[in-house]
């Protein structure tokens, strides 16, 4: 990786400083959720539905309750019925309130039926076996088509659910956004192409599954120690689900072993808290890997149809995008993921005056989809960028030329920004930084695009090809996300940085410390970061929507600037010079006029113990009025075994504009990791189901994710860019990388062998079938 940029002179920002938690992580010292051992802890386990759709006629827990060591069993008959959503989003939640702690009905194989708290895991599991449940099995539907058909069973027929778009027709959410006149747009176009691409069920597979410990502190407040991306949303949603006052709940996020979106959901915290409340004892719960696959959350399987109309010179004139999203049994993130299919893709090509984005998120009797890195954009870009490749071919244009002709530039806007927001209308926005043109140039050079594109290489059975795609994302959610930070100065001139932002392995603790350190003129080592404890840190919506660097980072920047102001004021008194003549760097406050200086530790000491004693501290919040998109150009080279259909990604180049990378190496890691996940989507990842809706490969033996041995040579380039609204010029990088591999690999396969793969993953079987059919 290299940073092709000359930055403003900074001493901490833009540097690959040592991660604030790097050494302790390597030494295995940080405490993860389950690394606590509270006396008297009970083990919680969930009884899952064996049926895809059924009414619970009766539950007999008498035998299970009689088992020695069983402390409590909860089910719909003995808990309060309160509708809520498990989606950890800002208030008011855009996802329907269609979930209950336990319901009278089960809606997928793996749905919650009951929960047990027992003295040991063995006893809990034995108790689950002893619970007798009588089901009335109902007809089930396993695809949006079946669910939308006339006479389909109604999955959410409960009367107390709210926020469902059309429960009678199993439609959790729907969008319909017309701009201009789409039919006129196509009729005025010289060339029209259409591509329909499909993504199946896939799962985040974080190394640490969902896990939670719920217990009472000495004052009787409920403490939820949990592996989450959204501690403050956990507090609010659990309070609602259990009817508890929020001040009685404290949520602690310890070290997290990855999330990728699945931990933006409340899937265990509500149950663990309910069991702890009922028993008065600590309760630990952890999903098995099988539960993580089936009962946590997945990507929304989706079929996206894109129709493009263009003028002969390649200028896009009309874009229609239709998405059919499968939200599974519950509508977690149904509307917002669906919205993002269009809102994060269509602005990329803002030249077309006629747009129509429409779609439905449909309930089925399959596992529940939720947030997953890319959040709809991944699904949208697959179809959009494959369609762009087809359009380039039809026009006889190089795919890069077509992108250059149409992509948004700094100073430009798109009506989509205003039309589609997070579950409601968005806000108008002008893109202030866009280096996609440079990304395309650098990426093309690195992969050897023009040379490789001009001739197809064939060696025996192996056919080689190159493909490309572009993508953008956002940086936080405009007008909704809020991040806050508190910085306190210690008397020795060091600082405490308290943030609600949630480092789930991304390195955001380090990045936020860098921002504070830069403003306060100290090395990162002088900042102690404490993140995500609802009792101790200020509010933050959490780690999602590519928001932490931009949203929480700006809050840190503002807080640091205020603390800096307070420091200069104290120093001004000590140096007897006006604050505006002073500057702060190298842990010193120095007078620009006289050269006199005081150290930060002297300032801290002065303020704490000597004169006008007070705590130097500030809290600042930030709600982004804009969501500047990061841009990436993806290029890859594949080899296709024409005899077997095996596809090997040989090389991957991604050139990204993430503004100024606060920590280039961490930005590189985000991009590389997202690309690897995207390669998994493209080549291997797919959950399979029986005709009764049972997941057949809910384990890592059968469900294959790329290992280090599968990862090709990935080159990441961060091009020169600066986002004027971002902290030190930064915008996001966390998600955009996952949007490119699916279309880039599909387009490269097309270049290699002349067949288009539009259904992921591109297994040997699908590739060979396509070769036999179209090749």
């Amino acid at each position, binding site marked *: 990786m290299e940073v092709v940029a000359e930055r403003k002179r900074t001493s901490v920002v833009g540097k690959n400083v040592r991660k604030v938690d790097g050494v302790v992580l390597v030494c295995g010292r940080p405490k993860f959720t389950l690394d606590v051992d509270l006396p008297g802890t009970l083990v919680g386990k969930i009884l899952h539905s064996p049926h895809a759709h059924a009414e619970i006629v009766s539950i007999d827990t008498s035998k299970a309750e009689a088992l020695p060591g069983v402390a409590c069993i909860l089910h719909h008959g003995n808990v309060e019925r309160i509708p809520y959503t498990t989606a950890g989003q800002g208030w008011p939640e855009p996802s329907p309130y269609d979930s209950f702690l336990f319901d009278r009905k089960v809606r997928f194989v793996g749905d919650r039926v009951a929960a047990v708290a027992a003295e040991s895991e*063995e006893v809990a599991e034995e108790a689950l076996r002893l619970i007798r449940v009588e089901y009335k099995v109902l007809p089930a539907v396993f695809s949006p088509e079946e669910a939308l058909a006339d006479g389909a069973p109604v999955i959410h027929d409960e009367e107390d659910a709210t926020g469902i778009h059309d429960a009678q027709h199993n439609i959790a959410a729907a969008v319909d956004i017309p701009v201009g006149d789409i039919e006129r747009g196509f009729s005025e176009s010289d060339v029209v192409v259409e591509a329909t691409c499909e993504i199946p069920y896939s799962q985040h597979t974080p190394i640490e599954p969902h896990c939670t410990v719920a217990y009472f502190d000495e004052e009787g407040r409920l403490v939820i120690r949990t592996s989450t991306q959204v501690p403050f949303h956990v507090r609010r949603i659990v309070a609602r689900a259990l009817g508890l006052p929020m001040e009685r709940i404290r949520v602690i996020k310890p070290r997290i072993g990855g999330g990728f979106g699945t931990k933006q959901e409340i899937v265990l915290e509500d149950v663990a808290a309910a069991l702890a409340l009922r028993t008065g004892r600590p309760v630990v719960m952890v999903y098995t890997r099988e539960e993580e696959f089936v009962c946590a959350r997945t990507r929304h399987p989706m079929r996206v149809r894109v129709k493009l109309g263009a003028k002969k010179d390649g200028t896009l004139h009309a874009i229609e995008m239709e998405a059919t999203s499968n939200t599974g049994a519950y509508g977690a993130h149904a509307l917002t993921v669906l919205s993002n299919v269009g809102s994060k893709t269509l602005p990329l090509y803002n030249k077309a005056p006629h747009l129509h984005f429409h779609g439905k998120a449909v309930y089925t009797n399959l596992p529940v989809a939720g947030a997953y890195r890319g959040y709809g954009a991944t699904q949208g870009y697959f179809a959009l960028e494959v369609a762009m490749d087809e359009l380039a071919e039809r026009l006889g244009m190089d795919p890069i030329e077509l992108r250059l002709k149409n992509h948004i530039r700094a100073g430009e806007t798109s009506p989509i920004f205003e039309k589609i927001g997070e579950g409601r209308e968005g806000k108008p926005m002008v893109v202030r930084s866009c280096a996609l043109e440079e990304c395309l140039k650098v990426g093309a050079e690195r992969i050897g695009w023009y040379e490789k594109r001009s001739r197809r290489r064939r060696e025996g*059975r192996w056919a080689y090809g190159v493909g490309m795609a572009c993508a953008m994302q956002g940086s936080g959610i405009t007008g909704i996300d809020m991040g806050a930070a508190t910085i306190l100065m210690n008397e020795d001139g060091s600082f405490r940085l308290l943030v609600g932002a949630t480092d789930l392995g991304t390195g955001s603790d380090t990045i936020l410390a860098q921002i504070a350190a830069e403003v306060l003129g100290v090395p990162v080592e002088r900042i102690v970061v404490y993140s995500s404890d609802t009792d101790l840190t200020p509010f933050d919506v959490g780690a999602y929507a590519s928001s932490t660097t931009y949203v929480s980072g700006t809050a840190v920047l503002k807080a640091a600037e205020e603390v800096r102001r307070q420091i200069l004021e104290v120093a001004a008194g000590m140096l007897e010079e006006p604050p505006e003549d002073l500057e702060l760097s190298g842990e010193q406050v120095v007078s620009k006029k006289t050269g006199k200086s005081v150290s930060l530790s002297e300032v801290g000491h002065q303020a704490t113990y000597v004169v006008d004693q007070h705590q130097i501290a500030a809290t600042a919040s930030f709600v982004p009025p804009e969501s500047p998109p990061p841009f990436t150009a993806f290029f890859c080279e594949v080899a296709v075994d024409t*005899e*077997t*259909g*095996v596809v090997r990604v040989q090389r991957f180049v991604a050139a990204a504009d993430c503004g100024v990378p606060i920590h280039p190496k961490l930005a590189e890691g985000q991009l590389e990791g997202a690309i690897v996940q995207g390669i998994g989507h493209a*080549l*291997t990842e797919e959950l*399979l189901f029986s005709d009764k809706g049972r997941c*057949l*490969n809910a384990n890592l*033996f*059968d469900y*294959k*994710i*790329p*290992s280090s*041995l*599968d990862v090709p040579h990935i080159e990441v380039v961060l091009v020169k860019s600066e986002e004027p609204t971002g902290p030190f010029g930064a915008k996001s990088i966390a998600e955009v990388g996952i949007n490119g591999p699916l279309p880039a690999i599909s387009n490269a396969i097309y270049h290699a062998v002349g067949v288009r793969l539009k259904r992921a993953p591109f*297994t*040997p*079987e699908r590739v*060979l*079938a396509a070769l*036999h059919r179209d090749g």
Partner: protein
Amino acid sequence: MRLRGIKRFHYARDVEEALSLLSAYQGRAALLAGGVDLARAARGDLEGLIDITGMGLSYVREEGGGLRIGATTTLTGILENKAAQGYLGGFFCEVLRQVAAPPLRNMATLGGAVVSAHPWADIPTALVALGAEVRWSDEKGEHRASVEELWQGQFRKIFRNAVLTEIRLPAWEGAFAFEKLSRSACDIALLNCACGLGIEDGKIAWARVAVGATPRRGRRLTWLEDFLVGNQPGEGLWREVRDRVEAQVEVSSDRRASGAWRKAVVGPLVARTLKRAAEKMGDA
């Protein structure tokens, strides 16, 4: 399911002790070497575990151009052994390098691969092609059989009361090659193939061909072996092989791959494996 019922853990000093412990438990104990399959499909009925890794059965010895491999030798142990590296130009190591991932190869034993003999596994296909022989002991004494014979019978029943002691790989004057199709680098096979050829005076003198993960366990294509003998290696022959295999090899579907895909690729797979074996002989 985990090994919840375990009451005792034993370290057997020798085969005799392992056998007597097995017998005492009357089916409620299992032998433990690498433990890979025990962990994968843990049995709730087990009360005893008998560790057999301290019985001197971890070794690789060269004998007359062949190999004698102790049953508890790990795959990594074999990969690191000079004699194994030299055996058939490194063929067996080439196979083992494609089995699972390094951490699993550090645990998994060759004996475990023989005793479990998963249909999708790579090692059985290679052992069948090589004509490997296995030795085991039970209360009646010592036994030997080719892996083909063993796996045709009720081998799982045998090993409930027996200790596999050694796997012997014979010497061959010729070359072997192995090919595998899988979804990822550490994946089990969607289809695999091991082939050996002896070439004299430009013609195939003997041939061994085994195909596995069809999804059934690796088995020889003796009709193809017979056909190959006397033929001259070359593209024409490989095309013929491809067509014959596609027409005659029985394949079917499982959730990893369909029978139709296996049918389409099994011919090319066998042909390319044979071609590589011939190339190793310097005669393609």
